[in-house]
């Protein structure tokens, strides 16, 4: 690998296989590698079913017993995969926290906001003392008044609830913050508030952020770097500006064309023809080949590798940049 920097979160060769009900193995995530530094904001983009949520769940250790997770995941240099249930539990929230997709459902409907955040706060190091103050501080951090602590989830709007979820996630000042589609089902203005809250929360706590979204616009607004996932693999990774303006992989290009931009709302949106592959089903050659406009001879038979494009910072998994002949055996 050309990236030598060691980040706050290091994921190397992550592989997730799920044993399905019929006893078949579904290879949901293949060889996913990325690294996020302290305070850095990293995006994972892709259509639904591309393995981005599965990647997050495996980082949290929340996949069930019939999922096998391989590879390495380090937080500040310490390997966390396979460290045992107790250890994984201890790390949750204090070192690695998550904001889930369902703004409506990720809060317990019968417990007040304050008590739910306080419950989370006790997972951290300085448990016990000043929990109340910490609850109020994180609420403030995401732009909510302290009074919200006394309310129940159903009394808040979707955007407020999602900001509460963010506040709850950073109350223990985790090293890594994962966010799974935090703005789905929110309108544009509320979406902006939630993203601002997310940025503030990360800036304040210095957490490394991994933001998962299907929306290129959201990623572009928040992240420094990003990886594009397709069919369980990273197909391109690089700085966000590069991905937006000089995408190397045809899929990235199509994703960019398909997403609306605040700066150019009148632009005609393209759509990506065809349907995403069925998750976990093995294929010969490049997974994107059936939908690729630039498909050529080797794409159907040889799977491309993730290799640097132009600079070492940008990598793509595409024969256009690395025809099979050039590839190392």
């Amino acid at each position: 690998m050309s990236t030598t920097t060691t980040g706050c979160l290091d994921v190397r060769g992550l592989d997730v296989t799920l044993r399905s009900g019929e006893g078949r193995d579904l290879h949901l995530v293949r060889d996913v590698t990325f690294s996020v530094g302290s305070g850095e904001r990293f995006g994972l983009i892709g259509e639904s079913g591309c393995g981005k949520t599965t990647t997050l769940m495996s980082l949290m250790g929340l996949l069930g017993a019939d999922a096998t997770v391989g590879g390495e995941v380090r937080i500040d240099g310490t390997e966390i995969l396979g460290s045992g249930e107790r250890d994984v539990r201890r790390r949750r929230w204090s070192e690695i926290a998550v904001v889930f997709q369902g703004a409506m459902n990720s809060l317990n409907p019968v417990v007040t906001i304050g008590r739910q955040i306080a419950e989370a706060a006790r997972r951290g190091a300085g448990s016990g003392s000043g929990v109340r103050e910490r609850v109020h501080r994180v609420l403030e951090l995401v732009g909510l008044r302290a009074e919200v602590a006394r309310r129940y989830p159903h009394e808040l709007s979707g955007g407020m609830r999602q900001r509460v979820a963010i506040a709850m996630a950073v109350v223990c000042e985790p090293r890594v913050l994962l966010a799974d589609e935090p703005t789905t089902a929110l309108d544009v203005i509320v979406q902006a508030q939630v993203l601002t809250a997310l940025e503030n929360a990360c800036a304040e706590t210095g957490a490394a952020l991994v933001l998962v979204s299907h929306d290129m616009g959201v990623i572009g607004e928040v992240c420094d770097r990003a990886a594009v996932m397709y069919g369980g693999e990273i197909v391109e990774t690089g700085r966000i500006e590069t991905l937006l303006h000089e995408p190397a992989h045809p899929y990235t290009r199509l994703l960019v064309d398909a997403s609306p931009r605040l700066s150019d709302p009148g632009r005609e949106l393209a759509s990506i023809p065809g349907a995403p592959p069925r998750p976990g089903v093995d294929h010969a050659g490049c997974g994107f080949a059936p939908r690729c406009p630039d498909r050529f001879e080797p794409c159907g038979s040889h799977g491309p590798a993730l290799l640097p494009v132009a600079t070492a910072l940008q990598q793509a998994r595409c024969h256009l940049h690395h025809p099979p002949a050039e590839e190392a055996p």
Partner: protein
Amino acid sequence: MAPLRVIGRRLAGAGVLIWLAVTFDFFLFRLAPGNPVDQMSRIPQGSRQLQDQLTREFGLDQPMVVQYVRYLEQLSQGNLGVSFVNRQPVTDNLIDAIVNTLPLVGLGLLIAIVLGIGLGILAGAYRGRPIDHGAVTLATFMYSLPPQWIGMVLLFLFAGTLPTGGMVDQFLIDPTPTQYLADLGRHLLLPALTLGLVMFGQYTLIMRSSMVETLSDDYVLTARAKGFRPRYVLRRHALRNALLPTVTLIGLSIGAMVGGAILIEVVFSWPGVGRTIYDSIVARDYPMMQGAFLVFTVSVVLFNLLADAAYSLLDPRVRRAGAAR
């Protein structure tokens, strides 16, 4: 105040239901084929004099509307007429019966709730596993058995070990309060257990499906992500939410419970409201039958109201929302 308005509306609803039940009660007995007095004269001790008295008492010579108003009037004064059998006011007889039924229904309900909810949690937690299949099959089967038959099987199994009928031992002379209570408890055990076995099945089924729903909710996942022990997550986050629909069901199941109680009181000769309605059928004691029927209906309405109240205490969405959305 929004909550007061909710309570007011619930009370008004219950009031309307009780009025409807009372009216239903009235017409059920008046519209029976033949002259009610003819029906009544079929009672064993029915004399000419009794018939005349009854005709006057019920105002059966008056038009239906007048009868209805009088019926309501008397009812509001707690007057349900006089029992044909023991010539005591129906109300007095019923109060005794209600006092006797309460411990039976109370203990039976407790057994059903503990058994039903416990098994439901287990089934929900291990859904799709053999333990789940076993629990669901057992619950459905127990729920399918006739209550009277369950009572008889228990009688068969425990005859000799536990008293088989009545509420207290007639031959216990001058018992101390402790002795009395112990004796009552021994008599109560089998009928209450029967009621528990009759009722727990449906609680198991609702608790199970409620658990399955709740465990797939995102806040349960969030709680796990927070790093809490699974046991804590189950207890603190899943359980309370899963209990909510069950509370409603328990309230609504009281109608079925009343049916069960009648049959069980007959099996165990328990001198409660159910036994009263049975005895009044046998003796054709219409005022008693009408009164006991009214007690059942009103208690079902009241119990539903109670379950509603419990639900709104447990669920902040109802407690605070103001409207019943």
